[in-house]
């Protein structure tokens, strides 16, 4: 390894956005065939650094950057994504870069379509050659097979579950020939654990072929499991270059955050009551990849209920079905009244809130301020933050700002202030805005799917704490869906385990991991359902 030349070096890179210096001299070195982790808190500048590497328009429309990029020792100049691709750089962006109206195969092969001769092409040359649809299908199928994904290449991307979309992007990157360096910007943030493992396996296979991989993730166990080296940045500044073998999760998180990170503990537990606030009967949800096949579940008033289970078993589908985002059948009763299914408005009117696992696709007005985004649902559905002057109602700017400030502090949203546009936030901080938004509408019950995905290890605690606090102080019922059992156990009162689309058991959070493990594997003997 020692005498190999690095594929990529980024030297003393600096970048300012509108006078706000977000990178203050970061250096990075990646060896061929290695998986290299880039770690840092939300807003540390990871995506910005990668955007520079990929020549993204957002960098060059805001004054470019300072510093040097070298590939195989040679200084290169990357001004557009086209340049980056020419040098063999591929990238899975943090936000989706897929065209929803196109099919999976059209997206995978976008601008790299195999061509074949056509009548027009004979006269007018290359651009008028026909797409070779057979080849497109074949290559796409091969890439999907390599990832072990069972998807139909001719399906439209619109309407796919997020995890699938992520795999479409990954399929696109691994299908590229002549790639020397692949960047994955938080690819696992929207994946279930099982899917994430599949992805890590695919990444290892690529690295074995000599492709260098830059991997950004907030799941430090993935960093430990998959990478050889780690670069840590904090607040736009380089902190440390580590050998993965010589470090551990505690050290990484301390370096990222700049202090020790405490373990979450919950002060007071909910007393088991028999007051049922929501009853779910025979719920079936048609969510591809997360099919729900007849769930019966009772949610107690004021509790924090966890929904866990392995990937693809249907736990994600439950909340999506209740909220009317995927077609569903069955009966859901909330506070004695039936909630109409397949009707998102009905759920919202019943004061049921939802933080989707798909935070990248849902709900943010990117060109509006943080404050406005947080206030919108409460304003639209409950008339909050409005001042009435006779028939006219105006927005109460002061109240909106105050509310935003509260959440900026509580959730540690890294921004220049409540009036900053959401587009200019880092991915993780955008997710915090989503959570603040759901909380502001003061729901009676809130469904939170994967609350800490894509959120750094320090902020994770803040988010969970906020949920616990609202539960204790406002008596809000919370239902958390998560694939991390440890996370559920640390905050929930009871945990329901979903297997094969059904609830196979509900256990107190204090039960042993072994019992949960048995449930997840589908062994239900001796337990009530």
């Amino acid at each position, binding site marked *: 390894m020692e005498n190999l030349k690095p594929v990529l070096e980024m030297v003393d890179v600096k970048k300012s956005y509108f006078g706000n210096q977000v990178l203050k001299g970061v250096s990075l070195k990646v060896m061929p065939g290695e998986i290299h982790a880039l770690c840092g808190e939300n807003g540390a500048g990871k995506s910005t650094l990668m955007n520079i590497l*990929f020549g*993204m*328009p957002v960098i060059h429309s805001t004054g470019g950057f300072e510093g040097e990029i070298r590939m195989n020792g040679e200084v290169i100049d990357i001004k*557009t*994504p*086209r340049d980056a*691709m020419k040098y063999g750089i591929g990238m899975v*962006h943090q936000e989706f*870069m*897929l*065209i*929803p*109206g*196109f099919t999976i195969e*059209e997206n995978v092969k*976008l*601008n790299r*379509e195999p*061509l074949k001769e*056509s*009548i*027009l*092409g004979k006269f007018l040359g*290359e*651009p*008028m*050659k*026909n*797409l070779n649809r057979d080849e497109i299908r074949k290559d796409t199928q091969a890439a999907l097979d390599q990832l072990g994904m069972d998807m139909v290449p001719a399906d439209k991307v619109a309407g796919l579950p997020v995890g699938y979309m992520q795999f479409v992007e990954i399929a696109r990157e691994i299908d590229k020939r002549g790639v020397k360096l692949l960047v994955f910007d938080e690819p696992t943030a929207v994946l279930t654990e099982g899917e994430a493992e599949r992805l890590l396996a695919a990444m290892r296979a690529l690295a074995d072929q000599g492709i260098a991989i830059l991997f950004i993730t907030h799941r430090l166990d993935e960093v430990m499991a998959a990478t050889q080296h780690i670069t840590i940045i904090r607040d736009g500044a380089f902190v440390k270059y580590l050998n993965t073998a010589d470090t551990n999760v505690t050290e990484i998180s301390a370096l990222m955050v700049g202090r020790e990170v405490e373990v979450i503990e919950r002060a007071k537990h909910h007393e088991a009551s028999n007051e049922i606030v929501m009853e779910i009967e025979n719920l079936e949800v*048609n969510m591809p990849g997360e099919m729900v096949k007849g769930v019966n579940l009772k949610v107690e008033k004021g509790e924090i209920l966890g929904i866990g289970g392995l990937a693809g078993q249907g736990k994600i589908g439950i909340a999506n079905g209740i909220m009317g985002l995927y*077609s569903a*059948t069955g009966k859901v009763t909330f506070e004695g009244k039936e909630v109409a299914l397949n009707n998102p408005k009905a759920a919202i009117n019943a004061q049921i809130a939802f933080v989707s696992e798909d935070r990248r696709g849902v*709900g943010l*007005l*990117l*060109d509006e301020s943080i404050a406005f985004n947080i206030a919108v649902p409460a304003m639209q559905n409950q008339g909050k933050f409005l001042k009435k002057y006779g028939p006219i109602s105006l927005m109460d700017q002061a109240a909106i700002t105050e509310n935003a400030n509260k959440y900026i502090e509580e959730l540690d949203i890294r921004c220049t202030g409540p009036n900053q546009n959401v587009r200019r936030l880092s991915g993780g901080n955008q997710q915090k805005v989503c959570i603040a938004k759901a909380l502001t509408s003061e729901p009676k019950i809130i469904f939170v799917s994967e609350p800490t995905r894509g959120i750094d290890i320090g902020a994770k605690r803040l988010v969970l704490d906020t949920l616990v606090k609202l539960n204790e102080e406002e008596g809000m019922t919370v239902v958390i869906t998560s694939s991390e059992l440890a996370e559920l156990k640390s905050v929930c009162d009871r945990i329901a385990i979903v297997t094969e689309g059904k609830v196979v058991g509900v256990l107190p959070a204090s039960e042993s991991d072994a019992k949960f493990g048995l449930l997840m594997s589908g062994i239900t003997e001796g337990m009530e359902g």
Partner: protein
Amino acid sequence: MFKNKKFNIKEFLSENAVPVVFLTLSIIFVYYSGTQPAIIMNDVVARFARNAFFVLSLLFPVLAGMGLNFGIVVGAMAAQIGIYTALALELSGLPAVLLATVVCIPFALLFGFLSGWLNNKTKGQEMLTSMFVGYFAHGVYMLLFLFIIGGIIPINVYELVLPSGVGARSSLDLTQIKGALDSIVKVDLFTFVFILAALSAVITVANTIKNKKLDVTKTVLTVALVVVGVAGNTLPALSMFKRVVKVPVVTYALIGILCAFISMFFKTKLGQDMRAVGMNMEIAEVSGINVNKTRITANMISVVLSAFGQIMFLQNLGTLSTYTAHQNVGMFAGAALLIGGASVTKATVPQALLGTFLFHLLFNVSPLAGQNIFGSALIGEYFRVFIVYGVIALAIVLHAAKKASGKK
């Protein structure tokens, strides 16, 4: 259990609401106009032939995400420059049309490039930009025809210039090229149907051989065409149609070729790039597609096609109002496309053809229908203006609303 893909009348109606409404309206108007359907048909056949190119030319900018390109008026201006050149060289008939076509191409390419470039500077506002491009180009065009023609470029043909010798006449007689394309071959409606049937049969056989499977829909279509043809030639009720309706075969053949070109085009690499750019510019750019170049190309193709369209239009009409002939081209074509059920972001060849047909049918019958229903032809006249602007305004509002809700 969740989705049944059966044919659903309600869904069909709601998805095709616009053409259905206009079709119903047309039928009512045809009835009230009190005109022989055969006579209406003959007029619509001619109008369709002279307008289809404009409407089809709009498909490129729509699919490339630039909306209705009202800027195709610059194509019409290029065509008028071509025609004027042909007249100045005292050509007539087909040679005049061919020369006009050759002359208009470089102008159309240039105009298309410039307006496309401007569109790239004002992304998101293309429809507005293209409208202003039209106004601006009109000014330049006036300058050319009022002062430069005869003033700087000498014109020796007396009928083409004002008596002062400077500036083109405002109304030019195109008798010498009238029907240069249309009159090459003209057949009656049902002979034309037979030609279509023959074509359809050839395609069906070719498809069947290629796919080794009988192409059922095309077979049915062929048989239907034959039946219509036979009926038209034998049934006395249709004899009026046979006598009155004359179809300009060459013009329709050109339209057919354009339709084939468009559907082939969108199977090519460039066509795919255009669709990608139309759906999402940012992602297209990040995928390495040259967004600006693709958009300019789409605009140039559209302007060239509309120039061809204007030549076809003028050879049918037989007169040229030098200073106004181009003016409504963009608006009318846009309205026709929308009536066919297209939106400003999505359009297909069948929608363009259906829209052209419905639009011109309504255009033909609304004055008389207005006269007979309300006792005033003016109401019918207002109505057609209302259709054009109303439909366009509605489409733009719907588009804006969709864009706003799409952001959420």
